[in-house]
């Protein structure tokens, strides 16, 4: 296909801990089309986040190739950004300083980037809070800063790492609706990792189900429910049941992975490798 923005070709990832080798991803191949809202779903500790970080160029795959616009990705790319589950705001920076972080690192002069980031402050509804520190904001407001920061550099591809799971349901719903609107208006490409079936159905145009470790692609669903999506509708419920059935098979065999089986163990290994 010509309009593929990103292509992953047989991505494998393994972590090493003393003598044990832990395979996390096994030959994951997928392509992300321009303007897609792709959702990668699976229970936690399945390497979804690792996959997302490989797509971000934050960590290398053990083997396999990631192509962005047809050329191999060898590190972070200015057109790819990420929104984090933990918001990842820099606490010593104010709201507007956090939002302009990307612009600053890309070398935009101060006055210009301040002007531009004020537009994003406004866009995410944080006017009047631009000089507050993250610690003074609620969770939802912090994630709005996270989104504004990701959008400020005008990326083509935005990766969401369980971006809504640290928020309460009401805030998360509002933000989700805003993201859908944004996606439909701008036509940017989104890739989201989540473990919530209904979140995946609410947002995405395509859903990929991951298997238990080592993570492989199990199934790919096109989600063709028209917008705005109604959670209580028949077609929503049908797909929810289908997705759940697909995921259920992956839930049981995970008990025998040993001490590194939980996602914290995986995160620990990831952190050791990427500091």
């Amino acid at each position, binding site marked *: 296909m010509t309009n593929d923005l990103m292509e992953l070709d047989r991505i494998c990832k393994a972590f090493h801990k003393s003598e044990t080798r832990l395979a996390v991803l096994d030959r994951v191949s997928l392509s992300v089309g321009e303007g897609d809202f792709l959702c990668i779903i699976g229970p936690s500790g399945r390497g979804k986040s690792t996959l997302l970080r490989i797509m971000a160029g934050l960590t290398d795959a053990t083997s396999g190739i990631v192509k962005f616009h047809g050329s191999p990705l060898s590190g972070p790319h200015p057109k*790819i950004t990420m929104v*984090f589950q933990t918001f990842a705001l*820099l*606490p010593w920076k104010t709201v507007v300083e956090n939002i302009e972080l990307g612009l600053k*690192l890309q070398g935009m002069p101060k006055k210009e980037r301040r002007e531009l980031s004020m537009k994003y402050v406004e866009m995410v*509804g944080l*006017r009047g*809070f631009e000089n507050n520190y993250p*610690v003074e904001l609620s969770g939802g407001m912090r994630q709005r800063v996270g989104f504004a920061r990701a959008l400020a550099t005008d990326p083509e591809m935005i990766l969401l790492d369980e971006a809504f799971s640290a928020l309460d349901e009401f805030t998360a719903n509002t933000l989700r609706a805003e993201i859908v609107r944004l996606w439909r208006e701008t036509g940017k490409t989104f890739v989201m990792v989540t473990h919530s079936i209904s979140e995946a159905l609410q947002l995405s145009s395509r859903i990929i189900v991951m298997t238990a470790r080592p993570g492989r692609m199990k199934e790919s669903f096109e989600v063709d429910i028209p917008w705005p999506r109604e959670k209580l509708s028949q077609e929503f419920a049908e797909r929810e049941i289908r997705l759940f059935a697909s995921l259920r098979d992956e839930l049981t065999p995970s008990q025998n992975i040993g001490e590194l089986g939980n996602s914290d163990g995986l995160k620990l290994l990831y952190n050791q490798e990427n*500091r």
Partner: protein
Amino acid sequence: MLWTGLGVWVEMVVQEERELLVFQKEAHLVKLTRKRLVVDLVSRHRSSLKTFVESHRHLQKTMGWTLHLAYPAEIEIDHVIDARVSADGTAQVTTKTSFGSRTVTIPELTREEAERLTSEINALVQAIERPRPHRSAIMVLRTQFVKGEWIFVLIGLFVFWEVFVALADVPADVIPIPSKIVAIMIERAYDLSSMVVLSYRNLLLGITFSALLAMSLAFATGLKGKLDLSLTPLVMLVYSLPDLALLPIIVHWVGTGALSAVFMCSVCAFAPIYFSVREGVKAIPTDQFEVVRIFGARKLALLKELVFPAAWPSLVTGFRLSFMYCWQIILAIEMIALVPGIGYYIKETAMASPPRLDAAFAGMLAVGIAVLVTDRCVFARIEDRIGRWRR
């Protein structure tokens, strides 16, 4: 004129010579006239009305009570960010809420009224907005030292001491007379302070040099686990040696000049700063690294944007610890290695014959004041600023 859209109604009545404003919600009523302010309070909203009235009080001066329009009661003036007239001529007021900002459209106004209202509201916001209080060093000193009962306790103690020494007829070379100490401090203020400055300079030189070194090393070991494993045990080893035992060796190497004091201070300051900064760097969450890296930051930019600001609070803590500790050390060095400075002065006066304990005490007090003032005016202020963004 009546607004009904917000569950409140605000009425403006213009009478012949005075302008009257009636602000009514449920059971409370405020009348604001050119001459007098009538507050009629029946309900439980006493406190909210009080702030309402108080926020208008400074308009007494600037506007002479000629307030033409009021904002709807639902909008709290403290939370107003901006008021503007939109393209279609309606007044829109933007306020801070706990979820972000919210814009309220005020219905049923003509364009002219809308313009008047928005300019009134903006003027109010301007009048209320106070700049973030800037605490100068003098102000800190004043709040830290002048306020509080402790000063009376101190004076009481001195008086008691004075009376005790006089009544019990204790010789001055056993317990000095406090009034004499104070007299010396005043009389020799210049000498004492220049000696304190001398010691202070040596100490700061030592700590600063050490801090630069400790910081760079701590950045390296805090970021690289392997380096940490091979270097930190060595720092521990050196740290566990008794610092003062190094003194004769250092004197042997660099002689007894000011250099030995500087050298000794940098040796002693190293470990507290090193361990503190290393902890600070290690505590940076991985996602913060990721977010800086995803925007393309490498090496230097990573240090500048992330590692240094994140480690700044622990650097301050380490520096503060070292500062306190080094004062002990430098006094000892000056006494043992005969380096000029306040420690040397204390030793000389206390060991003179006959001993001049009052002068020695004056020297000690001078050091105490220098340490205390630095701590309150420099470190406490920096920590205050850090506290603004830290939990």
